[in-house]
């Protein structure tokens, strides 16, 4: 018997889905059509897989944070925090050094071979309808041999990443050199990215390591503090759960109209996750829908991370996420649409960001239900609600 026949027989009993099974997907499609002229787009995860350059970004965004679990779910800003001093957003380097001290003070999870890494990721506060599912959970073997010894390209096992961080040298140059080797550039990339951006990208992925040795994480953050071009967004933004966050990024002209930002808790400078923001209007053509400056393309964090003994096991106190890892969420209405200024927009259809200032012109206008939205050209259909921009020092 020829091997193709054997392949064909595998899972050949998969059922043809019936109408009931397919209709929610059809509904999602027709919902998307209804809003076509509203310039809405669905940032499903297609971008993650179809834009090579974004792959590492996405991995970093979705892999998230060293200290998760309960701390991540505790409101970052109790009322008492009103007395806290707002972080100085003019000095990215100082912020990163504070982040390094926080990282160094975290406990070492002390992983062992054979353990499983449980993670629950959250996406949210992005431009456009929320991705489905918004929460996902995963179990991966700490020392999965399939992801070791470069068998899957630069997708290293958790164990390899832990060991890599544990063995980092002290100096920033040495750290970045090793990081570039560990996360090499895609040889098929259309253009070679500048070294600074490669350093930043590799560091971004490393910050998403869990489990990680605390001092290794601190080294990565200290190295970033020495990287020329690191900047902080001049106001607090929102993380995937809507909490205020300090956003740090590398200023670079080489980002195809997008920018990756690292998000930190404003008080402790604990690394919480990351997001990708459009920095100019652009039309990526076949790679996806057009983007407008200020669009939040991806906003993700890890809400829970823990070592467990068995696949399928959750750490104590952690429930299966609502909507499930594979269950998918219904498309919510578009109430969570957000833009670069971090404001909650209510039912809004267009994201206006002043191309010069990125900030002026916000907070104006009141929302009107666009009755003739379908007929309106994109230019005409631009009502929006007032945005509640989160400014440094403000607490909601």
């Amino acid at each position: 018997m020829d091997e193709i026949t054997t392949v064909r027989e595998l899972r050949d009993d998969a059922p043809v889905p019936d109408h009931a099974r397919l209709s929610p997907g059809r509904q999602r499609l027709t919902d998307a059509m209804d809003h076509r002229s509203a310039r809405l787009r669905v940032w499903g995860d297609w971008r993650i897989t179809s834009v090579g350059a974004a792959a590492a970004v996405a991995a970093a965004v979705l892999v998230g944070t060293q200290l998760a679990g309960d701390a991540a779910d505790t409101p970052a800003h109790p009322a008492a925090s009103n007395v806290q001093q707002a972080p100085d957003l003019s000095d990215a380097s100082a912020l990163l050094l504070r982040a390094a001290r926080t990282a160094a003070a975290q406990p070492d999870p002390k992983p062992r071979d054979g353990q499983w890494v449980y993670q629950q990721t959250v996406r949210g506060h992005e431009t456009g309808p929320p991705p489905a599912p918004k929460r996902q959970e995963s179990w991966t073997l700490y020392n999965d041999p399939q992801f070791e010894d470069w068998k899957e390209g630069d997708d290293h096992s958790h164990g390899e990443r832990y060991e890599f961080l544990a063995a980092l040298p002290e100096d920033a140059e040495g750290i970045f050199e090793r990081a570039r080797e560990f996360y090499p550039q895609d040889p098929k990339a259309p253009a070679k990215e500048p070294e600074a951006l490669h350093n930043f990208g590799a560091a971004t992925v490393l910050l998403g390591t869990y489990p990680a040795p605390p001092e290794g994480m601190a080294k990565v953050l200290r190295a970033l503090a020495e990287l020329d071009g690191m900047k902080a967004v001049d106001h607090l933004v929102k993380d995937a759960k809507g909490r205020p966050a300090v956003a740090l990024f590398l200023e670079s002209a080489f980002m195809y109209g997008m920018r990756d930002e690292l998000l930190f808790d404003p008080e402790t400078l604990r690394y919480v996750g990351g997001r990708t923001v459009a920095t100019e209007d652009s039309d990526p053509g076949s790679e996806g829908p057009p983007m407008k400056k200020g669009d939040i393309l991806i906003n993700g964090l890890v809400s829970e991370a823990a070592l467990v003994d068995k696949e399928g096991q959750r750490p104590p106190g952690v429930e299966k996420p609502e909507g499930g890892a594979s269950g998918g969420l219904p498309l919510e209405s578009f109430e969570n649409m957000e833009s670069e200024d971090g404001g909650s927009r209510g039912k809004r259809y267009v994201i206006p960001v002043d191309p010069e200032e990125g900030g002026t012109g916000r907070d104006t206008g009141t929302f009107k239900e666009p009755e003739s939205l379908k007929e309106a050209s994109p230019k005409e259909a631009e009502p929006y609600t007032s945005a509640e921009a989160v400014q440094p020092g403000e607490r909601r």
Partner: protein
Amino acid sequence: MSDAAIIDESRERPEIFAQLYDRHAADIHRYAARRLGDTVADDITAETYLVAFRTRARFDTDRSSARPWLYGIAANLIGRHRRSELRALRALARTGVDPVAESWSDQVDTRVTAQAAHGPLAAALAALPARDRHVLLLVAWAELSYQEVAEALSIPVGTVRSRLNRARRKVRAALGVNPMVAHDVAEVS
């Protein structure tokens, strides 16, 4: 009306695009289900069409069928789930129980036990590079032609052939068939 004509028309009348869903969603769903289980297939099917709808302006309407294009989008989305795909294949190889097939079988009933050949086959599929696995399964499961696979994955037909040959050789070896003999037989028949 051809798929291409529908896509063309959908630039003026978006709602007509839903006809493509009615034509091909079941195939895309079944293919995704065979790779990842049927609940994941629900999402992949829906997302495939959302992506397709949003990028329809770039569809090459010289191609009459949208199937390769849709399978290509689905393959991209399936690629996101590589770890879980590999986990299931390795579980099947190790235990003879297929977690993916369990997703659609009655779980209260007896567990799905695969044929004897499926263990080594699953191990071989798991060991393939992702790009070779895409080609092999688009041919064997989605029943796309080489040309269609080339369109789906945006690669030259020659690359489809070489990836498929490599994948087949590895699968053959895993099934314990002499690669040379099997090759001859396949060519004669």
